[in-house]
């Protein structure tokens, strides 16, 4: 077991280097660099060149990549943001936390809704209920998230203009008087702000999880041991819920490691439209500004989490499935 973990971690190193290198190249091949945005300056025509030389952007890309890698490995330093000039860690950690605050409940809620739907659909396959629930789970997926969020935003504004108070906030994560609230009120305040982004995220990811759950259930219901259980004369209820459901959930749990990076990699366009201060806006802005160190820091963290997640999945699988031995 221990040897397996060590081997996995050693195996991660080339993947990690390759992933960051690919990402670096993708950023580098884009025309222009960070300093390009300053070319259009009415008072200071030399600004772009000056910034380029101060930041060392005139050095070849591989030299900068190697410097970055060295700093990361030797000093654990993720670098300095070109845009804000401050530490990259200080910039991304609060925003990642904010994304996590939204996506952790969203993921849990998705599973809480999707698993029953998936189980029901598998047990009553081709029934009216199965079809209705399948279509239901697809509705949120089929509307682009940015548009769904806009609809909620418009509803919020309309409601306020009609009633003079907010049913759901127009956006953001906290109220302006947040720091003056008691900790319980702070919690409810964040929860209230989370309603709209949560609905958008959950509805858009429902179909995916439902489909996996339904597939897993069907797969297991067709297995020999279920047939054996039935043949033994166990009641349908016991077979379905004790044997089949438990095994299906185990499979789902074993994939949980894979969602780890997804929890902090941001909720995408919904963070823009609902004003949720997550990681996506920073990510997108950094890509457009070619602020390479911010992007690399994000990718580094996400890559590491993905690998840790996969490792956890493998270990979880080994723990729950007695056939797997490492």
């Amino acid at each position, binding site marked *: 077991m221990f040897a397996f973990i060590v081997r996995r971690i050693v195996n991660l190193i080339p993947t990690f280097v390759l992933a960051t290198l690919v990402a670096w190249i993708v950023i580098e091949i884009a025309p222009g660099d960070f300093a390009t945005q300053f070319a259009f300056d009415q008072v200071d025509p030399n600004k772009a060149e000056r910034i380029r030389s101060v930041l060392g952007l005139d050095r070849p890309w591989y030299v900068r990549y190697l410097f970055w890698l060295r700093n990361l490995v030797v000093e654990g330093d993720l670098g300095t943001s070109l845009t804000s000039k401050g530490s990259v860690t200080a910039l991304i950690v609060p925003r990642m936390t904010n994304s996590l605050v939204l996506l952790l409940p969203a993921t849990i809620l998705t599973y809480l809704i999707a698993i029953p739907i998936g189980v029901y659909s598998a047990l009553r396959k081709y029934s009216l209920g199965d079809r209705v629930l399948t*279509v239901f789970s697809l509705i949120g997926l089929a509307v682009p998230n940015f548009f769904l969020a806009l609809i909620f935003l418009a509803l919020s504004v309309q409601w306020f203009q009609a009633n003079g108070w907010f049913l759901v906030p127009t956006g953001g994560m906290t109220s302006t008087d947040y720091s003056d609230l008691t900790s319980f009120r702070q919690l409810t305040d964040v929860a209230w702000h989370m309603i709209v982004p949560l609905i958008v995220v959950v509805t858009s990811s429902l179909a995916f999880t439902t489909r996996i759950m339904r*597939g897993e259930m069907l797969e297991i219901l067709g297995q020999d041991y279920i047939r054996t259980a039935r043949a033994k004369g166990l009641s349908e209820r016991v077979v379905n819920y004790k044997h089949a459901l438990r095994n299906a959930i185990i499979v789902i749990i074993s994939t949980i490691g894979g969602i780890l990076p997804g929890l902090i990699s941001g909720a995408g366009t919904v963070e823009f439209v609902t004003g949720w201060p997550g990681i996506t806006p920073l990510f997108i802005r950094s890509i457009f500004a070619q602020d390479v160190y911010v992007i690399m820091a994000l990718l580094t963290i996400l890559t590491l989490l993905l690998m840790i997640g996969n490792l956890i999945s493998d270990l979880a699988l080994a723990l729950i499935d007695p056939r797997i031995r490492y």
Partner: protein
Amino acid sequence: MTRTNPDVTEGAPTRQETGKSLFSIAWKQFLKHPLARASLFILGFLYLLAAFADFFAPYPENFLNAYATFQPPNKIRYRDQDNRWVGPYIYQMTKSIDMQTFEEIWTVDESRRYPIKFFVRREGVRERYVPFPVNLIPIGLRHKLGIKPWATLHLFGVDDPSDRTKLYLWGSDDVGSDVFSKILFGARVSLTIGIVAALVSIAIGMIMGGIAGYFGGWIDELIMRFVEVLAAIPDLFLLIALSATFYPLNLPSSALFTLIVIVLSTVGWGGIARTVRGQVLSLKERDFTAAAKAIGSSNGRIIVRHLLPNTLSYVIVVLSLIVPSFILVESVLSFFGLGIQPPATSWGLMLSTAQAFAGVTGLTERWWIYTPGIFIFTSVLTWNLLGDGLRDAFDPRSRQ
């Protein structure tokens, strides 16, 4: 982020049943699935509209009218003031702005009726079009072969000799284009970009997965390591960063279409390769592979002729589930301004333009420009239901 690798049928058995072919059984099963059947019908209709967009649309793709921006849909009337049936007609609408409230006021000029005619011909240079399917042939080749089948026929159009009155069936947008026509032309991009990108992803995924699974060893290691690297980089980053790379090159729409396809398939092939590899690994232990080897077939031939076809059912299902996710991803790219560029159009571009320029207030006042949202919704929903139907049809355990 939409997930592009629905590995839902991972390990779906593909054993050949005796007697009937897998596909005829699947088809029978598929027909028992009412939602999937309805979806196939709706999608067929949408693709038909896209194919013959030039004929169904009253105006060409690059039609603009700066004097009628955000015009509400024309009301189609059938009876005159005396309630006599005169056939469909519209009145001209003109815009003015109330400088107190800043409302746009559209006045209907009832002095003259503009009848709507069916099967009209528009002979103008800019209104001629190349009919489907000839327009699929690249222009260069068409010129070389001397094929010039211009068509001028449109399903309907408003009859106005001065050509000043425009028929806006579903209103006009921020540049005065006809939303109805634009949706038909946008369907071409939105509905095909998903399929083309999915096919390319699947082709790459199958080849890479096939090679990795068949040869094993260091080739397998190399390919799978690369798949792992792609999986480690978030999809949204790859999408945006790659698009941002190509976007400043200021390419024509057709090249941009190709590039978006490349970007989407770069992101999409990894998961497919992994699954196909798994299937090939088990297939190559089977007897028929050994038999093919015994008669001296080349490796390439074995992969292409024997192993990959056996993963076909998986591929068909993945295709139908990947296409809708690519339709959505295309709209996300447009949201960030990195998708298709005007004068070409797509549903995603139309929707995100509407969101940018009419936004939260336009949702109630200019609802018609959000019509592309309904089309995205419908196509994504139906593609998914189609995929579900196909999966159940190919999966023996799910059969009714």
